[in-house]
């Protein structure tokens, strides 16, 4: 019985798992918000069916709203995929309504630990990276807690590391490739991975065009000059500098 937060984390990030280091611990630090929830989930049946079983060379990225990617990941685990939650935003503040709703995700992380452990996945099971596609949704306003977040290349393994484990292809499941994920996938493509989108059929993935200055010093200057859409704490539409925050 998983009763403590670290136990729950251990189920998603087992010591021996080769993708465990990338499991984000932030939301595991919050207790479940309610025992049973009516979650705002999309039907992930089609996603699960399209993903099929691991072929040894494919990794998946599920970028779906609320906890839907987690539900999809848990449904894929019995087929041999290792779900890797990458939710890296905080849940709420002491002040204000949070912009990104995380209650369902927290609940699913805690509730999913035991069924995931029961799958007894091998240490090198191919990864399914899980994201909330609503992570950048909403606009900050006074007394709204801006808990939007982005995924950066530093939040995931490099293309080199994926290839080291035999992964040469990444399949994306989601409506739109958001700019932050686009930066990650772009590096993977540069690193020699094949990117595909899966909807009704499998097609090559087209990535969004990013401003040339994303990830450069010019971006910091843009931020400094107030071009950042939300400088009250969040970062609006811009992909921030790599994984470090403001402190020195």
């Amino acid at each position: 019985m998983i009763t403590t937060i670290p136990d729950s984390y251990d189920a998603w990030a087992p010591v021996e798992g080769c993708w465990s280091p990338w499991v984000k611990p932030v939301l595991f630090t919050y207790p479940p918000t309610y025992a049973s929830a009516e979650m705002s989930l999309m039907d992930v049946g089609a996603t699960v069916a399209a993903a099929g079983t691991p072929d040894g060379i494919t990794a998946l990225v599920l970028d779906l709203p609320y906890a839907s990617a987690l539900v999809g990941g848990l449904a894929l685990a019995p087929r041999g995929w290792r779900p890797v939650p990458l939710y890296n935003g905080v849940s709420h503040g002491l002040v204000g309504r949070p912009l990104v709703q995380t209650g369902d995700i927290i609940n699913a992380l805690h509730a999913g630990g035991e069924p995931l452990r029961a799958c007894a996945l091998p240490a090198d099971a191919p990864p399914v990276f899980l994201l909330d596609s609503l992570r950048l949704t909403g606009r900050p306003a006074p007394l709204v807690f801006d808990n939007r977040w982005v995924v950066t290349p530093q939040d995931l393994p490099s293309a080199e590391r994926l290839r080291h484990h035999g992964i040469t292809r990444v399949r994306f499941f989601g409506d739109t490739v958001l700019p932050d994920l686009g930066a990650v996938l772009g590096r993977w493509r540069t690193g020699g991975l094949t990117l595909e989108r899966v909807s009704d059929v499998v097609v090559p993935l087209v990535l969004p065009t990013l401003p040339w200055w994303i990830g450069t010093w010019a971006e910091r200057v843009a931020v400094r000059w107030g071009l950042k859409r939300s400088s009250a704490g969040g970062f609006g539409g811009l992909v921030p500098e790599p994984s470090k925050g403001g402190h020195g």
Partner: protein
Amino acid sequence: MIAPVLAELPWRACSPPPPAVATQLRRQAIFACRKWDPQVGDVATISSGALVLTAEAWHELSDLTTAVAAETRALEAALLRRPELWRELGVPRALRRALATVLPGPAVRSWRFDWHFTTAGWRLSEVNADVPGGYNEAGGLGLLWQNHLPGTRTLGDPAARLARALAVQVPAGARVALVHATAYSDDRQVMEGLAAALAEVGLHGLPCAPDHLTWDAAGCQLAGEAVAACLRFTPGEWLPGLPRECAWRHLLGHARVLVGNPGSCLLVQSKRLPLLWDRLGVPCPTWRAHLPETRAVQAVAWRGDPDWILKPTWGRVGEGVVMQDRVLAAQDRRHVRWAHWWPGRAWVAQRRFVSVPWDGPDGPCHPCLGVYTLDGAVTGVFGRTVARPPINGQAVELGVLAEDAGGYQARGR
């Protein structure tokens, strides 16, 4: 030439722990120390070892830091009297205007001085005087490791010391705003750690964004209730990007609200500060003896010379630092071109030092010891290492301890 100081290294040999212990420590670091970013790319950022300083080395480092903190405080005071020099430090215009209007008020100063052991002894690379990070790791990792390394002692908990200092200056049960960029979980982890430390001394730490605060002459409110102190972790140079209605200038200092760190600390955080030493008339012998030679990029032929490194004036966590002793990455080449053709006040050139590697659990690596001070007194150490300098966002963080009076004996490797 290798200096005689190398005859004795300032640290003891490190022995890696059994794998089960290392795993346990990593989990404890994540959840007990709130180290929420244990992996950056392909790099695990929690070391599987701890650095044990000799007692003599810690005394020396502590004394040096105390001296340099006093000098830095004097430099800050001198700069406050010389606003005409602020532009030369690279302080943005909006901040200069705001700083000029800040009235003196209650403040605490928590700074971190980054030291490196080099072939010429201890060298200082910078002071993080605006919003130093690393509190959770500095207080927590050493404590975790001490239980596994008999004969060692911890070097302090800067968050606990900061909380105790606030408890002396504000009423019991007071509310303390912990102002940060809420979208960064690695900032939030620091806020959660500080809130816990404040709770230990009977204060209420409230993580919030700058725009959650409302200000007037009487003080500051958060959600309609007064706060007695504001600890700021939103970098000073980001503040001008905030909406005007935030009244962010009050975060730099307020007559009735205790702030930490006050905005004037940004003046001594600028990497261009050494360029003004001679004009400030403040003796700073420790700085002069331990900071590598620092010049304006216009004043020295740095380009292509591996003895010079390029540093951005407001760089943090090694961002933008270019070392020219290697093949430059595309981004480094862009920085070099930028500094060469449009130097302005955005860059400085600094002499490279040669750090002495530490034989860590995963092989030789280069430590940086960030020693915290609180209003001049040493409060703890934040340890980081990299396989190859400079220290940056992919540094591995580690506990730092000192051998105690009984002496420390490393287990055999």
